[in-house]
């Protein structure tokens, strides 16, 4: 794998995590998406929180998520993201593709 492909794979993974997180239902702002990923992965994923934002904007650009400005719990202006129908389809496809990849890696690790 060249470094470009590695990068794509990492980006894809982050996009997948964000989509999955938003699939939980409801609109979330960036901070809560970050918290959620950290909690669910039990702090195992060590990424900069900031890299979440390019991912969110990438998804918005592709039409997988919708964004809207709203008011947060503590009465602050915040940008809320919500999964679109297109995004839900994408999540499904990505999930399957990820599973196939993981299975393939698992097979290789087991039998190679």
């Amino acid at each position, binding site marked *: 794998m060249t470094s470009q492909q590695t990068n794509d794979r990492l980006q894809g993974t982050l996009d997948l995590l964000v989509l999955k997180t938003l699939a939980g239902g409801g609109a979330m702002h960036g901070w809560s998406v970050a918290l959620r990923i950290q909690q669910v992965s039990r702090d195992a994923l060590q990424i*900069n*929180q900031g890299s979440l934002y390019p991912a969110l904007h990438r998804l918005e650009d592709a039409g997988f998520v919708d964004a809207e400005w709203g008011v947060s719990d503590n009465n602050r*202006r915040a940008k809320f993201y919500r999964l679109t129908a297109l995004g839900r389809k994408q999540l499904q496809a990505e999930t399957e593709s990820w599973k196939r990849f993981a299975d393939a890696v698992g097979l290789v690790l087991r039998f190679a």
Partner: protein
Amino acid sequence: MHSLSRLTRRLRLLVARRRFERDLDDELRFHMEMSHAVHLARGASVEHARALTHKEFGSMDRFKDEVRDARGLSFTDDLARDVRFALRALRRTPGFTAIALLTFALGIGANTAIFSIVNAVLLRPLPYANAGRVVRMYETLGGAKERGSVSVPNWRDWQQQLRSFESVGGFLTSRAIVDGDGSAEPMRVRLTYVTTNVPSILGAHPLIGRLFQSDEQARGRNHVVLLSEGFWRSRFAGSSAIIGQTLRLEGEPYTVIGVMPSAFNFPDGARTTDLWSVFIPPERAEDPRARGWHWIQVLGLLKPGVTVDQADMELKQVAARLEQQYPTQQTGRSAIALSMQEDIVGDVRPMLVVLLGAVFLVLLIACANVANLLLARNATRQKDVGVRLALGASRGQITRQFLTESIVLALVGAVLGLGVARGMLGALAAVGAEWLPVSGSIPIDWHVLAALIAMALLCGLAFGLAPALQVSPKRMQGSLQGMSIRTTASGEMRRFRSGLVVAQIALSLMLLVGAGLLMRAFVALQSTDAGLDPDRVLTAKIAVPRRFTADGTEATALLRPFLDRIRAIPGVKAAGMTSMTPIEETGLQASFWIDRRAWPEPGNEPNVEVRSVSPGFLPALGVRFTRGRDLVESDDSTSIAKAVVNEALVRRLLPGEDPIGRHLLQGNAERHFDFEIVGVVADMKQSGLDVPAMPEIYTSYNDPRIDWTGGDMSLVVKTAVPEVTIVSQVRSALREVARDVALTNVRPMREVIERSLSQRRLTLFLFGVFAAVALALAASGLYGVIYYIVTQRTREIGIRVALGADTMRVIRLVLGHSALLAGLGIGAGLVGALLLSRLLTGLLYGVTPHDTVTFVSVPVVLALVALLAALVPTRRATHVDPVIALRSE
């Protein structure tokens, strides 16, 4: 679908760019504040909480950049930065920028102007809904290409037999006088008679009112008239109450039924038509014997799916049938159908295509010049580029930067060029209103703008490419070490720039040859013998009202008393009338045969130009009598019709015989009308200086049996005093004879001849300007390159001088190089000119496309200019001080 919505999202961001940045700031700040609050809540100090927040978030700037990347904003950001950089760079070198912009603006501006004309004349469809299907039909004679009018019986047969057309109409352009009414003066107007189906053939709609109805195609119902928008606004102040009102044309009442929009200018051309009424041919024109009377214009609307070629083929078949059916009148006659657009613009196309080609060469030369300037300038920036490469800029970035710079230059130049184009079009409109078959001004529409922008982008790429390709890390490394100027890389550059200059010289030689040929043709034309003496000759048109022509008193009651009064004006040497002013007007021709000779096969009688003239007309124009006498007033209907003929007619019909007393016959072997020849004159050109004189017959204006004129006559007065000084006396003479007769187009005969040359003069002028600009650009290009080479070789020259080379040797070195470039350019240009000059054939007169004088003198001129351009750099080379030159390393 998907990517389309993405594109709209991105465009929306671009438009609201500031808000996007603000929102992004807000979004990220919200995150930081939340994070900060959480760390505080967990017991961290304010300082520590801030540090933790930043650590967990990572680089704010980097992620912002990544967000912009994700939203597709970085491309436009980079572009904007490049453009700003380019503008700054251009401002830093104002001299270079000004010269490059000026060069390019001239080149592209001239192109835009000529293209606007081509667009308006050749490309833009006629302003009719059915323009693509409207076809003009003509009769042709003996396989000639000349498109002749149609006789009514032939037209009727065409109408019945042609299957390619939905409908076939006829029309006739004419003139009329709108009678005075209250405060409004009597007015001369252009009137076109059309069959009632013509507006629907064209697909026209009235501005107000209605079009003709088919039941108006009948005598008694045909006194209806459509007004042009221009006439309506000027005469009736655009009042819609005019519909249904009566307009009097020479005493006859016509009902106004509608107003046509200004785009409707049927039958088109440079002149505007004021009125349209219904065309109904007179009874005698419908007579089967009138098949030989060719006088009307025909057009038709193709059925959908039928091509012009198919229609032309069918028309020729019909014409062939008619030829068999009516051999006496139709032998040798065929017909042609062509699209209305082609009919109108076909004649100017060669000239416009030639001009477009010429101006395109100018643009090429201008681009080469700008490319050369850019190369020269970028050579001085090599160190700068080297530094940037060393600091990590990629080759791509620098190439992009260079290209952006040249494209920005081209686009700014294009904006200036637009101004140049507008100026040129304005100037052209001022000098020659009637040289193109379109009325009104030439617009710069979006077609032209699109072409301008495309041209500018292409040129920007073209002249930016060379400098951009010069960017090579290796070369730049050298430049950092300060050795660029003397490496092989610069030799490559020198060869490239020399190639550009050779091309410029070749192209400008081609243009100069073209201009030279056109100029030689123009001079040849101006010095041809027209067979008349235009010195101190005044001409004017007299619009003869119908009351004189209807009762046949035109000559006796109006023209003769008028002539008598004019001849009494002091300073007048001779005066006469003609049905058509020579050089300016032609078109009336008839077939004649000669007595005492067997009639030829029908259709083989020679075609003869016909003019109805008064006594004194030929002497007033200085036409020389070689035999016999002029017509006299007593040559009227009381005896056999008299005629004066020209030498060309004698050569054609009576070679070697005495023509005086012989009879010219019109008709056929059984029935003919006879003219007795009383005089012979030298040939006078009839339809332009470039058209040889046809056989011609001058008949008496005083004989009502002969009616060529259709009413209007032209006055010709020879004076001993400057001709314009008698104009007011001529006017008052006419008023004394008849108050309702208009005198129009009063001008000296010289002006009539000048006007006939206006299209040629304009072509020559434009071509000449283009060639001059090309020459100047090529010269400055040569100068620049030689100068560059001298600068480069300063050290070498210094060494040579130090080793004892004398000034002559240095001069030979530099001039030799210039001569090589100029020689190569001239050689290539001569080959190109020999190949291309044939394209000018149609515009030449009296010179061949391979005219020796032009092909010898132009290279000499160019060589001299090249020598001049090389002199300054040569002088500089001879002043090289070896000490300084060697030390400069």
